[in-house]
């Protein structure tokens, strides 16, 4: 397996792989978003308690799930960067952090505009909301540490360590609604995996939600690949392979950024 993975320590090989993968995330991501959003907004039935306001779930839950999912992937990249000293993995940390931060922000914002009509407040310092806010600060911390050093490799190492240490927050976020009395409700879907319980949501609402969960994964992964490609080109702008792509990219770039 290591023999297979090792070529991707080279920027050029990672870039070529990224170019192949990008359409497989971007196109399904866009199509599923279209389907999921229209299904969720117009065709899913209203909730018997929350009326139409519950439709925020179709952006809130996917963003929240992937804010944690991509944090774990960022930490794995950080681990690889620290253990095997692979620079491409450091660049992956840098590419994932802003996208993860945006997903976390979306989950907090959509949660606030859902909380106001349903709970009567934009924000409470309950365990779920607070631990999710800490996740946002962890992402911002990783981004800040990365650029806080003169030497990019030193910054990458520091950011990777913070990413790795911050993983402790992920189970805290997930189990916060069980460990403490929270205003936030308990999990509806992810308990299928973590508690082996069936989802407590009507199938007519579950399916558009599942579509949007996959849609958001596709969109976020595509954005991460685009950022990583830019970062790979930036660091090797003097190398012939990068110059070749940047020179010839004008025509093909519009559909394969």
């Amino acid at each position, binding site marked *: 397996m290591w023999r297979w993975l090792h070529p991707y320590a080279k920027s050029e090989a990672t870039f070529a792989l990224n170019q192949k993968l990008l359409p497989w995330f971007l196109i399904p991501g866009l199509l599923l978003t279209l389907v999921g959003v229209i299904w969720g907004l117009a065709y899913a039935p*209203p909730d018997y308690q929350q009326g139409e*306001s519950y439709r925020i779930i179709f952006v809130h839950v996917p963003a929240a799930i992937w804010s944690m999912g991509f944090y774990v992937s960022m930490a794995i990249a950080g681990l690889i960067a620290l253990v095997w000293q692979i620079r491409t993995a450091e660049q992956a940390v840098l590419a994932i952090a802003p996208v993860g931060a945006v997903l976390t922000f979306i989950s907090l914002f*959509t949660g606030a505009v859902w909380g106001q009509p349903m709970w009567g407040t934009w924000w409470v310092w309950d365990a779920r909301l607070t631990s999710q806010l800490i996740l946002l600060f962890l992402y911002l911390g990783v981004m800040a540490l990365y650029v806080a050093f003169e030497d990019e490799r030193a910054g990458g190492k520091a950011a990777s360590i913070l990413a790795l240490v911050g993983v402790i927050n992920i189970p805290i976020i997930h189990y916060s609604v069980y460990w403490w009395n929270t205003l936030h409700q308990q999990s509806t879907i992810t308990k299928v995996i973590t508690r082996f319980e069936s989802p407590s949501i009507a199938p007519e609402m579950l399916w558009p939600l599942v579509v949007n969960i996959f849609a958001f994964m596709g969109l976020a992964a595509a954005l991460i690949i*685009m950022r990583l490609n830019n970062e790979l080109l930036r660091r090797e702008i003097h190398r012939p392979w990068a110059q070749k792509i*940047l*020179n010839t990219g*004008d025509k093909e770039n519009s559909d394969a950024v």
Partner: protein
Amino acid sequence: MQFDSWSAFIAMGGYGVYVWSAFFVTFLCFGLLALEAVWRRTKLRDEARKQQARQQRIEKAKRES
């Protein structure tokens, strides 16, 4: 279709402001991230072109001196 009319769809049972602002902000964020990535690629392309032009000028000057 759960709504009888466009106006009912926009109103979202009185929760229109909350629902639509949530969806708007979500996709605005994704859009901005995508635009930023495309913009940065354009900048990189300009930077590469500038460096190559400089390299050529240096080589030309070396040849002529």
